[in-house]
C-alpha cells in the first residue's frame, strides 16, 4: 500500500469513528418531539438585526420577527444599520415608524460584531438574540427557545435548527442537505455539551453572558464561533433547540459560497489558534477532546483526501496522454466490463461507501429532527458537488490562515 492511500485510510477511519460516535450519542439520547406547551414565563427579549446593505431581505427578516408568537410588550427588534450604502437605512426607518416593537439604530460601518455590540448595549432585555438580515424565523421559534431556557436554568445560550430557505438551484440544494447534516451533528454536539458555534441566525443569549465574558470580538470575522469558544472557556452552557426553526438564504453562486465558507473555515482555524489551550484538554470536556480535534482533523483530512484524489486522477490522465503519444495508439472508446469480476471491491471503495452511507444516515436523521423534507435531487446535488467544492474553500482557508490574511465577508 502506498503512503498516500494509507493517509486516506486514516482519514476514512477517523471520519467513520466520528460518525459512529455521533450515532451512539443519538441513540443514547434521542431528540424530543415538539410540544404545544407554552413557557411558564415570558422573559423580555431583544432581537438584534445587524444589517449592512441588506435592502433585499431586511423587510422580510423583520416581518418574520414581528409574526413571532410572543407577547409584543416583551419583544423588541433592533435593526442596527452598520453604515449601509443602499436602501437598508430607509427600509429600517420605515419599519421603525410603522411598528412600535422595531427600533432603528445607525452606526458607521465597523463590522457585524460592532453592530451586535451596539444592539446589546442599547438593550435592557433578559434575553438578547441576533438574527442575520438574510434569515427568517418560524412563528414558534422564540417560544421554543424560551422553553429550552426554562427547562435548564444553567443554559446560557441557545442555537436553533437551521434550514435553507426555498432552495432552488443545484448549489442551494447541496447546501440544504448540508444544513440537514448540520442539524444532526449540532444536536449531537448538544448531547455532548460541545456546541462549537452560535450562528447569526437566531442564537439567543442570557444577558449575563455578556456581563461575565464581555461583548462580541472581531474574531477573524467569525464572532459567532469565537463567542462559543469563549463561553466554553468560561464553562458557560450552550444548547441547541432543535424545535426552533430558522430559515436562512444561502449563497446562490459558487463564488459567494466559497467566500462565505472560506471565512467560516479560516475563522475556525484562527479561533482555534487563539484558544489552542483547549485542544485535547479534558478540562473542556467533549469540546476539547472531540469537537476541536475532529474539526481540525476534518479540515486537513478533507484537504488531504481531495489532493490525493486530484493527484491520482491528474497523474492517470497525464500518463494516459503520454502513453498515447508514445505508443501512437489512436483514441478509442472501450466498453466497460459488466461482469461482477471487474467491480471495484477494494478496501478503499468499501470504506468510502460505508462512510458515505453513515453520512446519508446522519442527513436523514437531521431531516427527521428538523422535520424537513429533502428531495432525491437535493441528495444527488450534495453527493455530486460537495466533494468538489469543499476542498477549494478548505485550501483557501488554510492559505489565508498561513498568510494571516483576513477572510472577507463578501
Amino acid at each position, binding site marked *: 500500500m502506498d503512503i498516500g492511500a494509507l493517509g486516506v485510510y486514516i482519514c476514512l*477511519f477517523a471520519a*467513520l*469513528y466520528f460518525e*459512529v*460516535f455521533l450515532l*451512539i*450519542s443519538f441513540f*443514547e439520547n434521542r431528540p424530543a418531539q415538539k410540544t404545544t406547551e407554552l413557557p411558564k414565563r415570558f422573559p423580555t427579549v431583544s432581537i438584534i438585526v445587524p444589517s449592512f446593505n441588506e435592502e433585499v431581505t431586511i423587510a422580510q427578516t423583520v416581518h418574520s420577527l414581528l409574526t413571532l408568537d410572543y407577547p409584543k410588550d416583551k419583544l423588541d427588534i433592533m435593526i442596527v444599520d452598520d453604515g449601509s450604502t443602499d436602501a437598508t437605512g430607509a427600509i429600517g426607518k420605515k419599519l421603525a415608524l410603522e411598528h412600535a416593537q422595531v427600533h432603528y439604530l445607525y452606526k458607521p460601518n465597523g463590522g457585524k460584531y460592532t453592530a451586535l455590540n451596539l444592539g446589546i448595549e442599547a438593550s435592557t432585555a433578559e434575553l438578547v438574540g441576533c438574527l442575520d438580515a438574510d434569515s427568517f424565523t418560524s412563528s414558534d421559534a422564540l417560544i421554543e427557545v424560551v422553553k429550552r431556557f426554562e427547562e435548564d436554568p444553567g443554559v446560557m445560550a441557545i442555537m436553533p435548527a437551521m434550514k435553507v430557505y426555498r432552495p432552488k438551484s443545484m448549489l442551494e440544494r447541496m447546501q440544504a442537505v448540508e444544513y440537514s447534516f448540520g442539524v444532526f451533528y449540532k444536536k449531537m454536539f448538544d448531547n*455532548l455539551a460541545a456546541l462549537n458555534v452560535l450562528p447569526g441566525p437566531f442564537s439567543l443569549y442570557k444577558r449575563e453572558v455578556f456581563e461575565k465574558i464581555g461583548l462580541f470580538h472581531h474574531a477573524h470575522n467569525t464572532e459567532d464561533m469565537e463567542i462559543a469558544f469563549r463561553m466554553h472557556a468560561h464553562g458557560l452552557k450552550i444548547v441547541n433547540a432543535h424545535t426552533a426553526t430558522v430559515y436562512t438564504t444561502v449563497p446562490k453562486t459558487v463564488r459567494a459560497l466559497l467566500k462565505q465558507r472560506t471565512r467560516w473555515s479560516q475563522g475556525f482555524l484562527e479561533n482555534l489558534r487563539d484558544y489552542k489551550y483547549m485542544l485535547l484538554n479534558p478540562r473542556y*470536556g*467533549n469540546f476539547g*477532546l*472531540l469537537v476541536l480535534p475532529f474539526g481540525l482533523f476534518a479540515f486537513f483530512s478533507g484537504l488531504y483526501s481531495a489532493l490525493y484524489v486530484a493527484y491520482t486522477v491528474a497523474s492517470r490522465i497525464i500518463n494516459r496522454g503520454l*502513453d498515447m503519444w*508514445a*505508443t*501512437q*495508439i489512436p483514441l*478509442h*472508446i*472501450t*466498453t*466497460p*466490463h459488466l461482469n461482477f*469480476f*471487474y467491480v471495484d*471491491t*477494494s*478496501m478503499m471503495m*468499501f*470504506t468510502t461507501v*460505508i462512510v458515505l452511507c453513515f453520512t446519508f444516515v446522519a442527513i436523514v436523521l437531521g431531516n427527521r429532527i428538523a422535520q424537513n423534507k429533502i428531495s432525491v435531487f437535493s441528495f444527488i446535488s450534495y453527493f455530486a458537488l460537495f466533494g468538489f467544492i469543499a476542498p477549494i474553500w478548505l485550501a483557501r482557508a488554510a492559505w489565508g490562515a498561513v498568510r494571516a490574511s483576513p477572510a472577507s465577508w463578501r
Partner: protein
Amino acid sequence: MKDWRKYLLAFLITAAIFGTAFYVTARLDSARIAEIRATQETISIDLLSSETQFELLGSLDCSTIAQHPVLTDELNSLAEQLSFAESRLGTDSSDVINLKKQYSLLEIKDYLLMQQISQKCGTKPVSVLYFYSNAGDCTDCSRAGDVLTYLRETYPGLRVYSFDYNLDLSALQTLISLNKVKDTLPALVIGNKPPVYGFKSLDDMETLIPELKTMATSTTATSTNATSTQ
C-alpha cells in the same frame, strides 16, 4: 453512558466495521482467484482435449481449425482477469504468481499446438511472444503491453503470448533459452524471427509485422487490458 466508554465503544465499532470490510474484500479476492483457477482448468482441459485429438487422428480437419482458432478468446479473457487480479492483489501475491505460472504454461501449450497445426495444415498464424518484467526494471513494458493489447483487439488473428521474464517456471525458462531472449526488456519474438528488444510503437509494430496489412480487423474494440501482457 460515561464518556470514556462512548469513546471506546465508538472505536470498537469503527474497528469492527473496518475489519468486516477487510474480511469481505479478502473473500471477494479469494472468489476471484477461484474463478480464474476454474477458467484455467477449463482451458487446460480444452487444450488437453485438442492435443489428444491431434495425437489420435494424426491430423485435423484443417478447415474447422481455421474457422475456430484454438482458445484465443479464452486465453485473452483469462489474461484480462489475471491482469485485474494482479492489479488488485499486487504482483507479489503468491496466488497471482501461481496463476501466472499456470497461465504461462497454457500459453506455451497453445503456442506449441498452433505450431503443430500450422505444420500439418500449412497455415501461417502470426504469433508474438512478448517478454516483460514487472519487477520495476522495465519502464517501457507497460506501453509495450498497451500496443500489443491494441493490436490483439484490432487483429483477432494475431496471437500474442505474454510472459513474465522473471517467473520461476522451468518451461518458460526453456522457451526463453530456445528463443535466445536476453534480459533486455521488453523483448518480442515475432514468428520465427530473432528477438527484438525495446519499446516499439504502433507504427514500429506494423513495420515489424507486415502480415498485419493483410489481416482482417475487428469491427469493435473491446476493453481488454493485457497485462499479463503488462
